[in-house]
């Protein structure tokens, strides 16, 4: 399958390969209610200082400039975004933006803990969709993997999302050999029971322990082999710039997705930028360099117009320096200094 884009004539966020950037992922906090081993250590985390975390107004400011430059989709991530008490305010401010004359889309990636209590206010604020992470449906394994006994809270969040108007609902699991590779079918069944799409993500070298090993990771092909023993899988055409390859289960309409960043990278169609909770802009999940936006937001001497220009300039410079592909596997590949929780997935 070819993954690619046509160079745009737009004055928006177009990189040197012609990739048009229309998706901004905004990490709202590096803190989380879980301690998933592939993301962050159980103890000894050095958190971003509270004063460095962007406010709702600052996030909305960046989003407005990004929308003016053609960004149409904003995904709010963490850490765990539900830990922000002002999450609904952020959703409302971003959802009120327009890009190219059309409303933008605001989506949320969450572990679902506490979602049941807040989903109504988030829907009212303009949230479009939600992705919920769940790697296991077994309570003992959940505790072992996340270091927290919160599976029931995650399931309550999934239940609430299934009962809301937020569609399509997606559940995400990192597929890990020897951890949850015997639960792939169970996870799909969970998703099907909630009118959701299960998506399996290849584990990436973003683990806190730096023990990721390509030779032992569970691959896309292995995931599909397991699922293929239960369902017939038919590729869904028209992937576009989506990270997931989708497959119909038994000729549909239900589907499953696989995000194979390691064994089947999709860099050719990457349209994503990432803003960290402390206002640093990254052009790739695996980038080792960042550009500072917080300075532009907090320099008091700037006029409003100059501030907008400065933010736009940083966005353009980040896109302009974007590499052709991520370099997982390269002998010189350096795992980002930030943990996954401080980048946003």
């Amino acid at each position, binding site marked *: *399958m*070819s*993954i*690619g*884009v*046509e*160079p745009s004539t737009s004055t928006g966020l177009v990189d*040197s*390969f*012609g*990739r048009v950037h229309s998706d901004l992922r905004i990490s709202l906090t590096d803190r989380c209610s879980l301690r998933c081993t592939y993301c962050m250590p159980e103890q000894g985390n050095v958190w971003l200082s509270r004063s460095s975390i962007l406010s709702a107004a600052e996030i909305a400011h960046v989003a407005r400039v990004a929308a003016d430059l053609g960004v149409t989709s904003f995904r709010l991530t963490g850490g765990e975004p539900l830990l922000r008490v002002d999450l609904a305010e952020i959703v409302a401010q971003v959802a009120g933006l327009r890009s190219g004359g059309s409303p933008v889309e605001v989506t949320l990636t969450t572990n679902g803990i506490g979602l049941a209590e807040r989903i109504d206010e988030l829907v009212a604020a303009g949230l479009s969709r939600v992705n919920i992470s769940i790697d296991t449906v077994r309570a003992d394994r959940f505790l072992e993997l996340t270091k927290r006994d919160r599976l029931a809270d995650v399931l309550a969040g999934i239940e609430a999302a299934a009962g809301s108007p937020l569609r399509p609902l997606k559940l995400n699991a990192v597929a890990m050999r020897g951890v949850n590779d015997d639960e792939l079918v169970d996870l799909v069944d969970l998703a099907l029971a909630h009118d959701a799409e299960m998506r399996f993500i290849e584990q990436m070298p973003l683990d806190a322990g730096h023990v990721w090993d*390509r030779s032992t990771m569970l*691959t896309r*092909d292995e995931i599909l082999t397991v699922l293929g023993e239960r369902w017939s899988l038919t590729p869904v055409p028209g992937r576009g710039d989506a990270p997931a390859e989708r497959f119909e289960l038994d000729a549909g309409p239900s589907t499953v997705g696989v995000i*194979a960043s*390691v*064994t*089947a*990278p*999709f*860099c*050719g*169609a990457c349209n994503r930028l990432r803003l960290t909770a402390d206002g640093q802009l990254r052009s790739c999940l695996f980038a080792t360099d960042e550009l500072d936006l917080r300075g532009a937001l907090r320099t008091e001497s700037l006029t409003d117009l100059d501030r907008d220009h400065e933010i736009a300039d940083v966005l353009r410079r980040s896109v302009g320096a974007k*590499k*052709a*592909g*991520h*370099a*997982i*596997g*390269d*002998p*010189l*590949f350096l795992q980002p200094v930030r943990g996954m929780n401080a980048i946003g997935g």
Partner: protein
Amino acid sequence: MAQRLRHSSLILPLDEGVDNQAVDRHMLLWTEGGWSLQHFSTTADPRNHSFHFIWARAD
């Protein structure tokens, strides 16, 4: 004025990762030859991550 189109590819072993400097050198080689990038895409199979380019140049 006629426009010529050419295609080029870089095939990089997945387990050795993407050498982005090699991609940059490839791009530079073509652009210094007067070619402009018309299309960029990637493909992947279990062994390789391939980068495909379609170039145009006015003759």
